[in-house]
């Protein structure tokens, strides 16, 4: 153990790290919001939609849940230009994250929807609620309450998985770490610092989601 830690060598790069941190946070927030919207729509389509739509959603879910995230990302960034769809690395990163979280959350939310007893929906409909009102007030409300912890975990997994977007030159926190390591070769310090930053982010995300859950699902 003769290695001398020199964190001071990271100081000149504080702006690179800060940019990466902000990028990762924004990327996570936006893709979480849009991804869960996609997941909700997908789950609703699979449980209440027409059969053909349910099949399409099923194919989407299986395709995404059974392929590696990095392959999906490379396909969007390096592959799609061959079809004439050229996306910037930031857009490609957002899109890949949304598509990925969308597929996983579809299954999670579907589990929640299927756990709502049919009788509740029938009760709502018999009280002259429209199908949409029943979906919103009875099904989704109960479903989200049930699957909220699982969904929170998935959001954190996606946030940590976002490190992969550094591979297509999107300038997230991991990109910042790789960049600094390529400049001063202080790999130990850089990756230790960034690992701690991810740990802090994950714990903050969990705390924020818990607080959000208390506001959304407070007992009525």
């Amino acid at each position, binding site marked *: 153990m003769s290695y001398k830690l020199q964190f001071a060598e990271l100081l000149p790069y504080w702006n690179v790290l800060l940019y990466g941190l902000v990028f990762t946070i924004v990327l996570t927030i936006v893709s979480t919001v849009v991804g869960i919207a996609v997941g909700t729509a997908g789950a609703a389509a699979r449980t209440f939609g027409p059969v053909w739509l349910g099949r399409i959603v099923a194919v989407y879910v299986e395709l995404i849940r059974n392929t590696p995230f990095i392959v999906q990302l490379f396909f969007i*960034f390096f592959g799609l*230009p061959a079809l004439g769809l050229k996306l910037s690395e930031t857009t490609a990163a957002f899109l890949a994250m949304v598509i990925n979280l969308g597929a996983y959350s579809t299954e999670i939310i579907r589990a929640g929807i299927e756990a709502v007893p049919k009788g509740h929906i029938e009760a709502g409909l018999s009280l002259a609620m429209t199908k949409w009102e029943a979906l919103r007030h009875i099904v989704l409300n109960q479903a989200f309450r049930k699957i909220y912890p699982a969904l929170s975990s998935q959001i954190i997994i996606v946030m940590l998985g976002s490190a992969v977007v550094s591979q297509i030159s999107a300038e997230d926190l991991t990109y910042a770490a790789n960049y600094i390591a390529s400049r001063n070769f202080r790999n130990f310090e850089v990756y230790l610092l960034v690992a701690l930053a991810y740990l802090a982010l994950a714990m903050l995300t969990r705390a924020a989601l818990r607080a959000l859950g208390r506001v959304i699902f407070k007992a009525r």
Partner: protein
Amino acid sequence: MLFKRLMLAAALVTAAVATQAHADALDNIMKSKVIKIAVPQDFAPFGSAGLDLKPQGYDIDMANLIGKELGVKTEIIPVTSANRIPYLQTNKADLVISSLGKNEEREKVIDFSIAYAPFFSGVFGTKAMAVANAADLKGKTIGATRGAIEEQALTAMVPPDTTVKRFEDNNATIAAFVSGQVDLIATGNTVAAVIAEKVPARAPALKFVIKDSPCYVGLNKSEPALLAKVNEIITKAKASGEIGKLSEKWLKAPLPPGF
């Protein structure tokens, strides 16, 4: 008595070896009608194993050219970049043609001919991109491999509003260029040659050179006759366009201006 004889024999052998080592290398080559040339076996397009497992590449063609010009048989000796200079120093090779760059440490132990092959990193791009120097990169996006020498040099020289997209390795940088995610890349001329060969539709054209480190033929010190002869052959081959042909064949690009 026996001991004395042995000592004498040893002295004679040492003297003979020393004489041989100090004899003019060019004379030896002309007498034995064979020139031994060390070439790379692991560094395409300069030297790699072909489909028949024989070495092929720019350096092998160059070695054969020198043998032909000397009128002797060329014996190709595949080496690695780590042992190419020791091969020369131990007289296992007369010349090293192994994408060898010049630097101070090497100049202390061996001599170098004039440059026989262009080797440089630069900014390459599609034909439509009008870029002639670093200032022209203003507002443009350029891809590079993170941590590579050319990427660090590029970062230091580009205007502040240039976007440098840094990729994990050469393959990702190549993929970004080939897929059209970037129209400019900073890379080595050998990498550009690979792209030009695999995807002729997006052959990268040289915009400007970042760092030039051409390849030289290496040979042992104090061999002025051999050095002069090798330089003469290279000069002649440059003038006759033979080296230009090698560049077109293996590096898929004409010789850079001023080479």
